[in-house]
């Protein structure tokens, strides 16, 4: 019953967005060069962030689930920081980081602040923590015995990891990727502070909603929100479908 209320709330929110806007508003939003740019940048930056997150989260999640070492508790707490820290604080911290001498040195080589890399870095800083959590749980749920058997069969540790552990973690990797992607799409505070909200430069969909709202254009803001919902659902469905296709495809292959 209580669960039902929650589901009703979700459906009602999306429904309200849908009924508030009209196809004309959506069409106008899509015709706007700014919003098309934001959509493109959102799709690209989220995908890059999700891939980077997975790349970092696989070894980290594995380390945290399979090894005991000194300072593991501290590392665990550090990995929780991006999850518990207010997003604005993360953005501010990133901004300050790139004002320090090492940060400035990096900026000289690759301009980061207020440009596209800053969007990705702001998304990655938060999204990766969720990917690490997900993969840690994934690796914890895998029977370590399979890996041990692989060692006795002549595998090195890395062979056992690539041939036995990673294929079994495919489902978790898919979830981690999806979660990181979705977090990145919704990222707003850190991007606003660290990357700014420059049209045709660092504007992503969440920034568009904010920019449209700030000039009192509620219809456009809702239209962009709906666009975000549709994009998110489409991408997540695509990843799920593609993922389960390959998973199932392999599982039932004759």
């Amino acid at each position, binding site marked *: 019953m209580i669960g039902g209320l929650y589901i009703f709330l979700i459906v009602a929110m999306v429904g309200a967005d849908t009924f508030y806007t009209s196809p004309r508003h959506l069409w106008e939003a899509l015709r706007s060069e700014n919003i098309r740019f934001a959509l493109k940048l959102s799709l690209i930056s989220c995908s890059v962030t999700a891939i980077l997150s997975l790349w970092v989260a696989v070894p980290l999640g594995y380390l945290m689930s399979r090894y005991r070492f000194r300072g593991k508790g501290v590392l665990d707490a550090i990995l929780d920081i991006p999850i518990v820290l207010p997003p604005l604080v993360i953005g501010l911290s990133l901004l300050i980081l790139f004002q320090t001498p090492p940060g400035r040195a990096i900026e000289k080589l690759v301009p980061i602040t207020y440009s596209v890399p800053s969007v990705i870095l702001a998304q990655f800083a938060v999204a990766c923590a969720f990917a690490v959590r997900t993969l840690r749980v994934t690796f914890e749920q895998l029977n370590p015995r*399979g890996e041990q058997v692989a060692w*006795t069969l002549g595998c090195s540790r890395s062979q056992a990891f690539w041939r036995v552990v990673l294929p079994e973690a495919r489902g978790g990797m898919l979830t981690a990727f999806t979660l990181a992607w979705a977090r990145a799409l919704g990222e707003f505070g850190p991007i606003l502070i660290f990357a700014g909200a420059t049209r045709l430069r660092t504007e992503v969909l969440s920034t568009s909603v904010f920019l449209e709202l700030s000039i009192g254009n509620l219809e456009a803001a809702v239209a962009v929100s709906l666009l975000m919902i549709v994009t998110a659902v489409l991408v997540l469905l695509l990843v799920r479908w593609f993922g389960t296709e390959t998973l199932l495809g392999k599982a039932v*292959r004759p």
Partner: protein
Amino acid sequence: MVWHRDPSGKGGPAVISLQAVALRAGVFELREISFEVDRGEYAVLMGRTGSGKTTLLEAICGLRPVASGAIRLMGQDVTRLGPGSRGIGYVPQDRALFQTMTVREHLAFALVIRKWNRTDIAARVTDLARLLGLSALLDRKPAGLSGGESQRVALGRGLSFRPQILCLDEPLSALDDETREEMYALLKTVRERTGVTTLHVTHHLGEAQCLADRILRLQEGRVVGGRLA
């Protein structure tokens, strides 16, 4: 207490030899574990649940470090060697089949790692499948196998690279009586055909009596035992 090899044994160096092995795992510790298993022998290691049988088997397979003492396999000191260098076919209690692989891939796994050529791998897989009655299941995944079938796959995976030694951890514990009888027969056939020296861990006396040349008992952190008549 140190148990010495029966002088009426088959001769030659012991294939498995533990000398004063001590190891600690969680709450219990095993001290001064010494025993030997001869070439081609079928030894059954018995002990109560929690007596450390599995821990000892893991130490022999190289999955657990020993605190002191020496483990020799085929006359070579392997105490500090990794599991892959010991040449033991290992079948864990929960079988630990690779969920994403087919039965064929299980049987070929160790051979692919050893870079055998395709023709040899295919021939070996066919032979093993015939020996273990897996020919019809080669393209199945673990999720679609019964308990007995899973056990045969785990056994085949362990035997695939023709190890001299086979370590079985409670291989028949989760099987119904009928399947268990079939497995007795299969384990005997495997032994006849391959001559592999086997160390089989169980708490089931009937299993030991049916299969063993030698019964070793793990009691209060020590191993006692001897050859069956």
